[in-house]
């Protein structure tokens, strides 16, 4: 397997910059996810690694070896398409053997390896059937097997689980993790689903509008987002982000939200906001699970009063949408006691709150939480 170096890569389509000065180093055997909203450039980046698109500026290297000029068929890459691109006119067996046949591997060897891979992917019972007759789930396994069988040095997967039903998706996530350990290949996984990225990847690269927002392990990114975009994108349910103007009145530093609510800042988050005097417009971040009800736990926790607008059941928990003026806070109703229409006090713990500069998106203060 290979390591991948992406150095200052830019890709332009006419006037449109799809990827903007992207630099990323992926280690051998690492499972890296390219995560971002649709249209952010993650698929374009992957296409450049595969050679399907060429690089406008910058370079991509495998094991420190320059790749431009190498044809797609010589790059030895495994690629799983979003819609699988199975050879529908061939049998399952022939699909699996294709990569080996074009390399002129001996028939006996091919048979052995195809049978082993079919076993591994649990599709042995379908080997002689036309690939077009497989269910969506089986097709996905076939797509993975077909690429894996040639033992490529890196594996690229383009949103491979997006066409599957929810139950099977959860199962395949676990399978993919196991497979990656077994095959030991360097994997790059493109997705817009942050739960997928968090659960599968060793490292996540968050991309927005062609730029790299942050690159780190899932928990690093979750606990210490570098900027507002990352904080908002990672985490389910999403982090509450209250955007507004900072105003200083004597000792009080307040954040007045654009849609009405006013937070009197205290504790760590107050000093974070105050740390850069030039910042006038800020964004206050607090995760739903950190908001609590009932008794105040610490003096530096900020008290707010809100009306319960909507209650949603999410799995075992209930989400409460709290309205403060026109601003909405999302919190977990842990005690299952709230009712729609109630006006309740709730607390924002300063130790768990995050401060962002609204203009640049940059995280302020940033003492690791």
């Amino acid at each position: 397997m290979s390591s991948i170096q992406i150095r200052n890569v830019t890709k332009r389509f006419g006037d449109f910059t799809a990827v903007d000065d992207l630099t990323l180093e992926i280690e051998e055997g690492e499972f890296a996810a390219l995560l971002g909203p649709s249209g952010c450039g993650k698929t374009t980046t992957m296409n450049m690694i595969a050679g399907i698109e060429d690089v406008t500026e910058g370079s991509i290297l495998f094991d420190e070896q320059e790749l431009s000029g190498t044809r797609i068929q010589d790059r030895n890459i495994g690629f799983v398409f979003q819609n699988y691109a199975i050879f529908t006119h061939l049998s399952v067996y022939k699909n699996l053997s294709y990569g080996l046949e074009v390399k002129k591997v001996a028939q006996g060897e091919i048979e052995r390896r195809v049978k082993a891979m079919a076993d591994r992917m649990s599709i042995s019972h379908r080997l002689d059937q036309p690939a077009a007759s497989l269910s969506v789930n089986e097709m996905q396994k076939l797509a993975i097997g077909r690429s894996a069988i040639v033992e490529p040095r890196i594996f690229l997967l383009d949103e491979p689980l997006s066409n599957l039903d929810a139950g099977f998706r959860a199962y395949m996530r676990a399978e993919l993790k196991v497979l990656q350990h077994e095959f030991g290949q360097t994997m790059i996984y493109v997705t817009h689903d942050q739960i997928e990225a968090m659960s599968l990847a060793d490292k996540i690269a968050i991309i927005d509008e062609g730029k790299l927002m942050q690159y780190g392990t899932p928990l690093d990114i979750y606990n210490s987002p570098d900027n507002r975009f990352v904080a908002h994108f990672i985490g389910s349910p999403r982090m509450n982000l209250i955007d507004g103007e900072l105003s200083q009145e004597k000792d009080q530093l307040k954040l007045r939200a654009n849609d009405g609510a006013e937070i009197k800042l205290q504790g760590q988050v107050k000093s974070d906001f105050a740390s850069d005097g030039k910042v006038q417009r800020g964004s206050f971040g607090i995760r739903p699970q950190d908001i609590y009800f009932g008794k105040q736990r610490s003096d530096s926790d900020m008290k707010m009063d809100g009306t319960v607008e909507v209650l949603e059941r999410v799995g075992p928990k209930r989400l409460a949408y709290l309205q403060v003026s026109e601003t909405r806070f999302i919190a977990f109703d842990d005690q299952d006691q709230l009712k729609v229409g109630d006006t309740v006090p709730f607390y924002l713990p300063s130790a768990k709150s995050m401060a962002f500069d609204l203009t640049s998106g940059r995280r302020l203060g940033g003492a690791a939480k």
Partner: protein
Amino acid sequence: MSAIEIRNVVKNYPNFTLGPISMSVEQGEFFGIFGPPSTGKTSILKLILGLLQPDEGEVLLSGQDSVEMGVAERDISMVFQNLALFPHMNGRENIIFPLKERGVSEAEISKQLDFVSGVLHVGHILEKNPAQMSGGERQRIALGRAFAATSRAMLLDEPIAALDARLREEMRVELKRLQRENNQTFVYVSHDEEEVMAVSDRVAVVADGKIAQIGTPDDVYSRPNSMAVAEVIGSPPMNFFQGKLSSDGKFFEGDKIDERFPLKGKTKAGGTATLGVRPEDIWLGAKDGDFGLDLVINSVEPLGGYTILNAQLDEQIVKIRAPGQVDVPERSQQRVTFDQRRIHLFDEDGIRV
């Protein structure tokens, strides 16, 4: 009297029979219908709307049998999965179309239009054509069209399935708010379990062409009455363990579990059974007095606010949901405890015991 009632309805298809199904939707209720794709959920909507006639049974609207009513007379709006916006009309024309068709006065039309565009924030796109709108904007126009004609009920067939995750979450809240503020009756079909559970007042779970259970999301989640319901509600899905009940009905003996699992209270004696436990009801660590197991953890999925652990029990993968961020090394063996109050037992037919 319910707004919509379906009584013992059967609809026959070449490979598949829908029904007999019975359900009722009360006025002002947000009623969800959930099931895997192609199980007849859309057909139920079409039966209510009148696009399909039942082969057996009745569909009653406000207590009246609807068999004689044409689609237009039923006064029900529908939002289709593919939206079905008129491509040659702009946003405004699409929304007021049903009103014009019914011959509503100009004054009334303009009042409705203002109301709808205010509520759905579509004022700025009324002049655009569907082709120029984004997915979310089209969605809202389609909703506006269904809303503008105040009707007895609104049927929604996977209306937000095509949107990306963020927009979907926003629209869910909007829909719920709209429904409540207007005291509308909504019937909402989706194959996304999370979505249906989040928005509905009551849910009907459809499996194999029949309604497996009707209840509040809480009922269906915490007290599924059959395995068919238990395995589709909840993400990650419930863990199931095969086994049998002891002859005195006090223990569950799992095929792959060495220890016997003590059951609270007595259940029927003997017979094969399946034990169901949700991932969040399995705890890491031992708890005195509670039933525990040693499992090897295959992989850990840190999702920030909680963590999913995949553990191996023979060939079965057991999913465990732990709150917060846990520090468990992969491949290690851990003791886990089952929450005895939250287990589900199903007999050999898959019915709750």
